[in-house]
């Protein structure tokens, strides 16, 4: 169980929830938590609301029991540890009853989380180069990964993409280059020395275009692509384009994928992804996003 410490608005839509939890196991970027996005079911009273013991509808609007039973997977967006506790960050955007519930939590509320789960991003060799690519809420594991990679001595650049300026889930400290030049413009990454290219669909911030337009430009300028690893998280169409571009250029890439999950631990078999498999007649087999991933190498995934 986590206790909410703060909620921090990142932009018009995205917010970051930070909670503290005791005995949080070791975690790496790309792993996820299974979060109960509703009041916990309580044996004594049915549904219990976080800050009080009343049942039924909470005074906070939109907080009635949404009738959902499953947890929801969220990428871990950061972990800081002290002697007894870990402070953990999650990123979310209100898209339904569950995320509305998360948005309603205030400091002191309890959050029921399981994890860390799944396999995260791998660390490249020392002296390697990395390009981080984040699309929308796919930023969640990328900022934390950047910190880890930088600390490990990996030279990183980043591309941060969103539909429009006020949907960028990051702090802009310097106007990003409209020509797609990588600069120290995003606070979270500038702090660890990572230069970022910002792209927006409408050109309201940084380069006008998609993350992959930015990536095309970056790769054209990159003189060291054999030692490069691309790490990406974002919408499925973006990941597919990233994988294809990397495949064409012989660049290693790792993608944090997402699927509807039932259990998050490999039992329910619902979050299937086609993975390349030469031993099968079709050339692929089903893997599980939760247990075999959620991070996959670009050349593992067979796009349907």
């Amino acid at each position, binding site marked *: 169980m986590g206790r909410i410490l703060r909620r921090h608005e990142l932009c018009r839509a995205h917010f970051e929830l930070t909670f503290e939890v005791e005995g949080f196991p070791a975690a790496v970027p790309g792993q996820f938590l299974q979060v109960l996005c509703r009041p916990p079911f309580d044996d004594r009273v049915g549904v219990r609301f976080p800050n009080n013991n009343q049942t039924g509808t909470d005074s906070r609007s939109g907080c009635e029991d949404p009738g959902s039973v499953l947890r929801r997977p969220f990428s871990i967006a950061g972990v800081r540890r002290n002697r007894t506790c870990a402070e953990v960050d999650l990123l979310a955007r209100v898209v339904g009853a569950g995320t509305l519930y998360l948005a309603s939590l205030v400091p002191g509320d309890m959050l029921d989380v399981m994890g860390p789960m799944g396999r995260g991003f791998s660390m490249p060799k020392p002296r390697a180069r990395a390009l981080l690519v984040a699309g929308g809420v796919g930023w969640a594991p990328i900022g934390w990964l950047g910190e880890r990679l930088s600390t490990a001595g990996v030279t990183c650049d980043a591309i941060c993409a969103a539909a429009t300026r006020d949907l960028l889930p990051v702090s802009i400290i310097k106007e990003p280059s409209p020509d797609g030049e990588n600069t120290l413009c995003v606070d979270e990454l500038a702090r660890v020395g990572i230069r970022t290219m910002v792209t927006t669909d409408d050109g309201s911030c940084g380069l006008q275009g998609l993350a992959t337009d930015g990536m095309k430009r970056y790769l054209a300028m990159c003189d060291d692509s054999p030692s490069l690893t691309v790490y990406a998280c974002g919408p499925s169409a973006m990941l597919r384009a990233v994988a294809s571009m990397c495949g064409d250029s012989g660049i290693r890439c790792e993608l944090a994928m997402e699927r509807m999950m039932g259990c998050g631990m490999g039992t329910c078999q*619902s979050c299937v992804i086609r993975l390349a498999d030469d031993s099968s007649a079709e050339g692929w087999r089903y893997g599980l996003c939760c247990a075999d991933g959620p991070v996959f190498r670009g050349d593992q995934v067979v796009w349907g």
Partner: protein
Amino acid sequence: MNAKNKRGNVPDLSVQIGNVRLKNPVLTASGTCGYGREYAPYVDLSRWGGFTTKSVTAEPRAGNPPERLVEVTGGLLNAIGLANVGLERFMAEKVPEIEGLGTAVFVNVAGHCLDDYVKVCRRVDSVADASRGEGIVGIELNVSCPNVADGLQFGTDPARLRELVSAVRAEVTRGVLVVKLSPNVTDITATARAAIMGGADALSMVNTFAGMAIDIETWRPKLANRSGGVSGPAIKPMAVHLVHQVWRDVARDAGVPIIGMGGIRSWRDAVEFMLAGATAVAVGTALFADPRTPEQIIEGLSAYLSERGLSSVGGLVGGCEAEG
């Protein structure tokens, strides 16, 4: 933690299902706990009364294309398509793992024709032993999975069901034979009777209710399989009713125990199923949200019996029909 009753005794939670004595009546339902090992990091499986594996079929099955699962109000709708490693890998890899978990295990067996059922049951029974109370103690026959096009008939037609159960019964000599009933029938007492006449030691009920969900943006069914099975709290009142109907009309007089399931997430739900006529219960969908659910139910049951001065959990079975 065991609660004591008024006379200071710990209530007896053990129950008899065919030839196996379970240490308590709380099992987990097929398809919700894999082969058990997946839950080992989160819970002490040896505290469960037992669990039921996901379906095993003669050949490996990749399962249905996604989407395989969607959430519906108060539950889940799934069409996994019996994805499993197949009999050979199950015997070679999963059986040794299961043996070390310290709890009773029912292996769920599914098939597409009588011969497949017979073949899988024969092999699984060869490693089963109902007399020991842990490890593989029996087989649960999946005759009602509504996901696979030709799997439906066995469980919905009493004559074919009886034929299937008889054929399997001849092979299952070491383990307990449980038949899992489909709720998607006009008269569930007819299929219950057929299963018992075929030689079932126990009935488990109910499997998921046939259901469907449609995306109003795309106008397409949400599941790739078009339809699937509904589980979770949404189906509990229907499941309780069917358990009661079968207990009252068939199972009570036949002396055949019922393993009740359908939307159980608390000890209160478990008590309700037992009062309806179930001897044991199984937790399914609720496990996904909280793997500790079975342990909480076991503790809650014990406390409930103690408060009421009941010495054993068997005293609840069919209690809604008890005199005054």
